[in-house]
């Protein structure tokens, strides 16, 4: 730090701190570059598996009366194709890309919670493996990718198939949840100093909105899966119409997730397009602010559209008209982006190169899918096209056009960043034409097949409906398409083997990721730059060597610590020095413990499951050991004449922000549960004459008082971080009160009446269970703060643990109040008709 070393010397010092050694130690890696690549490679593998399954589908459907696969196998195959493509390919693929790219684009050395990235990866790997192994064992899910009940309920799917889906996908969703929180926090807090929100490159904006949508969008699905698994495993009725449940509740919960999901998949791809197109147009993106407004509008609208998947379930027409109009409205922000992109090309000096070829494919295919989407949004037409091959065509135009083509463009644009080599371009052009022609042959005809009456999800068809030649051509197209993908894969392999090496920035791009060396070093940037302009109009080739020489923030190796910066969310002023945790096997162990929990449920070893959950919790509690600081350090030099406090001494650091975000997510889950209870009360059949849940009033009232007092006590402790006695007394009181509330809630759960008899008991049962769980978590967070305080990690300045205890205890208090409110409402006699 005293004398500036040479770029090579600096590289050696920093790499010694950040690198992951080879061999088995790779399992301990928490580095975002390594994990991002792992996510993407695994997602590609699942893409290949999903593609293989689609080939089986097309082989089966090529001819009428086909006896290749029977309905039992076929149903597993199309379900797995959809499930693999959506949950194991598309989502993890963009997560992996964002994990790899965002810190480099924003000027950080890693993500906010590197170990959480690793934990997410293991959950993805283990959960995905459960699904694939089940398929090889012949017990894959077979209820379709949206798993409608009652078909997926116990009486109609008695085997393990549906449990594989519910548990496997929920396990995988953990990685989506962790990624969403981590990306959200990272984008808001970990940018290069000077990069105000309004200077962020558009890809970061797209990912910020995507992460926000995931935070709100995933909880309904997770809740639905938990409820359905409880119905299957423990007979608690939520979706069973004979016991006061309603199959429509599942559809609402699923599509509350499922529709935003489509935009969650599209937005990152659009973000990639918004990055690639200006580079080849050789001018900055047109309408930077209009695009931001469009994606925010899209995010909001996408949560008001879910009913367009349910136009034929018998909802009153005027209600449908609202959702129909909202669905049509989404075309506007989409059109804004499409025309911004075309306008960027038209008003620049467009260059033609391989990535642009695939961008063209995007335009041709996606626009078509968008137009059929508007058609499907029209209720009358929907009643004909819904659940027919027209929808299969539409969804592939949107997903392949809106995700796969941009992904291919991104592969040709960014793979050189990963490989350090340039593409050979021999195979990419024939590959493109095979994909474009094969795709349209396969799917364009399906519009017609559907209009001619072919429903989706049938394993075979007789020859008399006139669908034969259409299906045969679709199958031929499918195989042409697959050959195209195989060529792209070969091209990627060849690039790694034979591609020419290059210096920096092969495309004359404008974004910071090209300022790293390629392949990127473990620490990304030897020094972090200061941003004086919008961060998509940089000169990476010029900045790169400067940064490599240590000219910037943190351009040195200090104390062997992994240092990076946090900034003010809005202005981007440097604010905190973050010391990131080192590589560790803990994420792997924790994920294994989580896997034992899910496997115990899957194999119905219900006695084992609590141990799995407990092991996961204990291991998570080991994560903070050794992190943090036992003394106040005050402002620390970060170079360029600036000094900022370490993040543990900052009041709103990434940990606090992440916990607030997690609580929003958690709150969405709880809100979905409340919505479910009210929905059943108002809509479900067989409520007339059901008996009300019985709640001991004193227990409920006392639980509210106890939990709210715990919230108050932990808030008081957080307010007096300096004085030992009130702090400890507050936390101990919070623990005791939450344990009391938990006990009372558990008592009340026992008193409700048989929860397997009717939804009117089952809903209060899980709602109180959720509240009890959060009282427990409140107590644990208070105990955690107490423990950290005892070890000296907490002081008047370092009070993160206290803030967390306050947040979680406050949340628990609120949950207890609302939960008991719902139970009281369901307990009122004289149920609505």
């Amino acid at each position, binding site marked *: 730090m005293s004398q500036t070393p040479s770029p090579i010397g600096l590289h050696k010092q920093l790499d010694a701190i950040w690198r992951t050694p080879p061999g088995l130690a790779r399992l301990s890696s928490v580095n975002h570059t390594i994990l991002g690549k792992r996510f993407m490679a695994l997602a590609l593998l699942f893409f290949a598996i999903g593609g293989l399954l689609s080939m089986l589908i097309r082989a089966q459907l090529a001819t009428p009366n086909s006896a290749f696969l029977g309905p039992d196998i076929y149903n597993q195959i199309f379900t797995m194709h959809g499930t693999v493509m959506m949950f194991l390919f598309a989502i993890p693929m963009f997560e992996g890309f964002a994990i790899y790219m965002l810190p480099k684009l924003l000027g950080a050395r890693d993500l906010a919670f590197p170990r959480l990235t690793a934990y997410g990866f293991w959950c993805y790997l283990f959960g995905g493996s459960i699904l694939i192994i089940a398929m090889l064992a012949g017990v894959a899910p077979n209820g379709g990718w949206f798993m409608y009940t*009652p078909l997926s309920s116990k009486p109609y799917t008695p085997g393990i198939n549906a449990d594989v889906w519910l548990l496997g996908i929920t396990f995988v969703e953990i990685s989506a949840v962790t990624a969403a929180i981590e990306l959200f926090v990272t984008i808001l807090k970990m940018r290069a100093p000077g990069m105000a929100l309004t200077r962020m490159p558009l890809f970061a904006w797209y990912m910020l909105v995507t992460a926000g949508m995931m935070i709100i969008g995933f909880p309904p699905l997770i809740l639905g899966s938990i409820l359905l698994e409880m119905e299957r495993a423990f007979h608690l009725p939520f979706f069973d*119409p004979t016991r006061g449940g309603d199959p429509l509740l599942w559809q609402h919960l699923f599509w509350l997730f499922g529709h935003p999901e489509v935009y969650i998949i599209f937005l990152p791809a659009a973000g990639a397009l918004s990055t690639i197109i200006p580079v080849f147009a050789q001018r900055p993106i047109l309408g930077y602010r209009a695009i931001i407004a469009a994606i925010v509008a899209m995010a909001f609208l996408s949560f008001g559209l879910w009913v367009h998947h349910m136009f034929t379930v018998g909802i009153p027409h005027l209600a449908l008209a609202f959702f129909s109009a909202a669905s049509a409205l989404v075309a506007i922000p989409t059109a804004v982006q499409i025309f911004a992109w075309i306008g960027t090309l038209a008003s620049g000096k467009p260059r033609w190169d391989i990535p642009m070829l695939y961008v063209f494919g995007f335009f041709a295919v996606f626009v078509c899918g968008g137009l059929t989407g508007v058609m499907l949004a029209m209720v009358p037409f929907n009643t004909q096209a819904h659940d027919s091959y027209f929808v299969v065509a539409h969804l592939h135009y949107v997903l392949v056009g809106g995700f796969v083509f941009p992904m291919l463009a991104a592969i040709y644009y960014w793979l050189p960043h990963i490989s350090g080599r340039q593409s050979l371009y021999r195979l990419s052009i024939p590959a493109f034409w095979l994909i474009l022609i094969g795709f349209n042959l396969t799917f364009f005809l399906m519009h017609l097949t559907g209009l001619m009456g072919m429903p989706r999800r049938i394993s075979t068809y007789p020859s008399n409906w006139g669908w034969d030649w259409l299906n045969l051509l679709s199958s031929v197209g499918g195989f042409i398409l697959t050959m195209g993908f195989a060529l792209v894969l070969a091209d990627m392999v060849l690039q790694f083997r034979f591609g020419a090496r290059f210096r920096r920035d092969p495309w004359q791009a404008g974004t910071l990721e090209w300022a790293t060396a390629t392949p990127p070093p473990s620490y990304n940037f030897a020094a972090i730059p200061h941003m004086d302009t919008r961060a998509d109009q940089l000169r990476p080739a010029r900045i790169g060597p400067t940064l490599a020489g240590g000219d910037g923030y943190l351009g040195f190796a200090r104390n062997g610590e992994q240092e990076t910066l946090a900034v003010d969310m809005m202005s981007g002023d440097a604010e905190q020095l973050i010391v990131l945790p080192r590589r560790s096997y803990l994420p792997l162990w924790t994920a294994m413990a989580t896997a034992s929990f899910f496997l115990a449920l899957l194999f119905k070893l219900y006695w084992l499951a609590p141990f799995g959950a407990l092991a996961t919790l204990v291991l998570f509690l080991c994560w903070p050991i050794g992190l943090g600081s036992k003394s106040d350090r005050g402002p620390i030099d970060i170079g360029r004449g600036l000094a900022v406090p370490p993040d543990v001494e900052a009041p709103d650091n990434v940990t606090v922000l992440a916990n607030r975000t997690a609580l929003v997510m958690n709150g969405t889950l709880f809100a979905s549960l409340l919505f479910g209870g009210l929905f059943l009360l108002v809509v479900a059949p067989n409520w007339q004459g059901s008996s009300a849940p019985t709640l001991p009033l004193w227990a409920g009232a006392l639980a509210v008082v106890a939990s709210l007092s715990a919230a108050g006590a932990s808030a008081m402790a957080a307010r007096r971080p300096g004085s030992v006695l009130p702090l400890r007394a507050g936390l101990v009181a919070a623990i005791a009160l939450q344990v009391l509330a938990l006990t009372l809630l558990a008592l009340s759960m026992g008193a409700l009446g048989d929860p397997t008899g009717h939804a009117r008991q089952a809903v209060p049962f899980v709602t109180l269970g959720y509240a009890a769980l959060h009282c427990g978590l409140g107590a644990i967070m208070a105990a955690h703060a107490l423990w950290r305080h005892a070890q000296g990690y907490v002081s008047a300045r370092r009070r993160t643990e206290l803030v967390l205890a306050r947040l979680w205890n406050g949340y628990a208090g609120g949950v207890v109040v609302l939960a008991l409110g719902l139970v009281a409402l369901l307990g009122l006699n004289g149920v609505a008709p």
Partner: protein
Amino acid sequence: MFKPVALGATPLLLTGCTGALSTLDPAGPRAANLATLWWVMLYGSALLFALVIALFAMAYLRPAWVARITPVQWIVGGGLVLPIPILILLTGTALVLGEQLLPRGDAPLRFGAHAERWQWNFTYPDGREMSDDVLHIPAGQPIDVAVSSADVIHSFWVPRLGGKIDAIPGHENLIRLEADEPGTYWGQCAEYCGPGHDSMWFRIEAHTDEDFTALMEGGQ
């Protein structure tokens, strides 16, 4: 009344796309309406698609007028001025059309279709149940079908007569259909319902008024 319009809108090339389950070969006023809506949307979409692709090509061919379009014109023109009127017109039309298709007003004959894996049982206005998988109706007048399910979700779809409606356990849904002429109209389950989903077919036999009355009075 809508048939000539539908025929007029149907490109000759595709009149070959008839089929016993084809929505493009409507056999009743409701299905004809829906087919017309489809053709109109298809032509509109083809135009819009051509426009986008042409603009993309222009961006590369670079005639002078394209380079002169300002950013605001691109975004306001393409993002707002172009889609908004189209969307308003389309959504409005669809809303009116949808209202017309609702089973509302003077109650016609009401039939029941009860789905059970993997067959359809039909009941008649007089309460009688008749043989599985065939429903007899009078031609030339609208009829209502009350659709329900005994087990999982199914969907009742006779493409040449009108749209579909789901059969959901615990709920009953109503759909109105109409056949212009006597004849056989095939239907099928459109919602995935397990291993027998691919063969959950049924027929609607439409009869002249006299034949239908005779059939009802015959009472088998």
